């Protein structure tokens, strides 16, 4: 007898590509208590949606399983109705920072651009530590940026900068890459954005009024989740401080390969799924233990992975919906998580 979860549980939902549910009726509002923004407040936002894809971890070898899952995410975005205004790729396109991996990823992501959907990139550690970001920057430009879109100020930062752990150890670029490619690297140290980007961020938001809606993307979370796996950003406190003047900030991160949610001060934080594989939950208490994903079937390459679509309404209430392919998201989260 062979029991499969797939046989036991009828899939009730198709991927959430259509019909955005208004956040105001989400059953989670009570749980997460996010109704901090005055829903009646008028802003200059024209409602829109965007998608977040990340943690593709492409390997050099052809027809790899992670090619298929990234391609599926891109194809799903291409089918979205309404079409997303843009896509943010939230880091770790490559697994070992190799040119072939990054070029393969760009080829897949460029399908979006060809279909009229622009995408923005931030790097992850897997993209970076073979050549310290040289080839990534050549392909994708600056690793930190900001832009305004329909009344919202969007920021992307490079949060994976560590102190030099390789020179004193006389490591080759490949050894440096292999070390940090392990989540539990215990010689790599904690990463962050560094002083230069903090100064840039200060300048970037200096002239923005406190009622400006802000969305910030970083590869790693801007809160202290589990430093052991670099589920953190060393200077997150300083970033939160710079952004503390705003009424509300939505912070979206990758790296954790899992559904996770938190709130700090004026910020709401949410983690994106990977298209490659799911990470386990670390040995710490979750701030919102109900906002989690199911266990994945390790035999199904489409389980445990996915991406997200985010709808921003005219009052700057967001709704992030995980798009999954194998009954990963609990029923009460399927309509999205209010941001």
């Amino acid at each position: 007898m062979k029991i499969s979860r797939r046989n036991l549980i009828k899939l009730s939902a198709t991927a959430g590509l259509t019909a955005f549910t208004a956040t105001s009726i989400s059953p989670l509002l009570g749980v997460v208590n996010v109704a901090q923004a005055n829903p009646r407040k008028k802003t200059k936002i024209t409602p829109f949606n965007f998608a977040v894809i990340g943690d593709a971890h492409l390997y050099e070898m052809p027809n790899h399983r992670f090619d298929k899952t990234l391609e599926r995410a891109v194809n799903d975005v291409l089918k979205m109705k309404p079409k997303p205004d843009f896509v943010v790729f939230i880091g770790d396109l490559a697994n070992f920072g190799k040119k072939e991996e990054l070029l393969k990823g760009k080829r897949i992501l460029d399908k979006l651009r060809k279909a009229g959907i622009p995408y923005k990139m931030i790097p992850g550690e897997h993209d970076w530590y073979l050549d310290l970001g040289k080839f990534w920057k050549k392909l994708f430009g600056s690793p930190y940026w900001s832009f305004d879109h329909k009344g919202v100020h969007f920021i992307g930062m490079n949060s994976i900068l560590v102190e030099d752990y390789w020179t004193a150890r006389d490591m080759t670029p490949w050894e440096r890459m292999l070390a940090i490619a392990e989540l539990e690297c215990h010689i790599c140290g904690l990463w962050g954005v560094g002083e230069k980007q903090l100064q840039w961020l200060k300048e970037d938001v200096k002239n923005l009024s406190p009622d400006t809606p802000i969305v910030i993307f970083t590869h790693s979370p801007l809160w202290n989740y589990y430093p052991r796996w670099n589920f953190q950003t060393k200077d997150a406190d300083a970033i939160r401080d710079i952004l503390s003047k705003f009424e509300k900030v939505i912070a979206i991160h990758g790296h954790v390969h899992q559904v996770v949610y938190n709130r700090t001060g004026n910020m709401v934080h949410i983690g994106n799924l990977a298209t490659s594989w799911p990470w386990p939950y670390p040995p710490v208490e979750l701030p919102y233990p109900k906002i989690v994903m199911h266990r994945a079937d390790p035999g199904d390459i489409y389980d445990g992975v996915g991406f997200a679509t985010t709808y921003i309404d005219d009052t700057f209430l967001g709704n992030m919906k995980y798009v999954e392919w194998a009954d990963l998201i609990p029923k009460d989260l399927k309509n999205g998580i209010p941001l």
Partner: protein
Amino acid sequence: MRIKRYLLTGVLAAGILTTLIIKDSKSKPPFEEEELKLMNEELINLVKKGDELWHSPKLGTNGLTCANCHPDAANSNPHTFPKYQSNIGKVATLREMINWCIQIPLKGKTLPEDSEEMKALEAYSIYMHRGFKLKPGDNEKAYPPVRVESGPGYP
């Protein structure tokens, strides 16, 4: 001292020098402190070998390692075996599950269940869950490993 020790210097596959302890037939607890220390060192050597294999793409063919999905051996749930494993279709031991992972997600060749490599992988997984209560048959939860502040997670 009731343990005779023959120190054999050898290089293991992992390149680690190890000490071989051979107990004589009369050795039994209580052991002396030094004996306990040596026995523990033997265990840690096996755990270390398991750690290296756990992070090695050599077990598979698609570049993946055990650690892709199981950092610090998280969610390997060694204390929940044996249990009915739906993807194997029968009650499985931890070693059978490790072989399933090598064969399916890693696309590799299974290891003989009594091989040194298998023992090492099992030792690493169990050591990263030291202190956990045995829960054979538990299919409900995935368990994080022991909380590690620094280092590899073992002495």
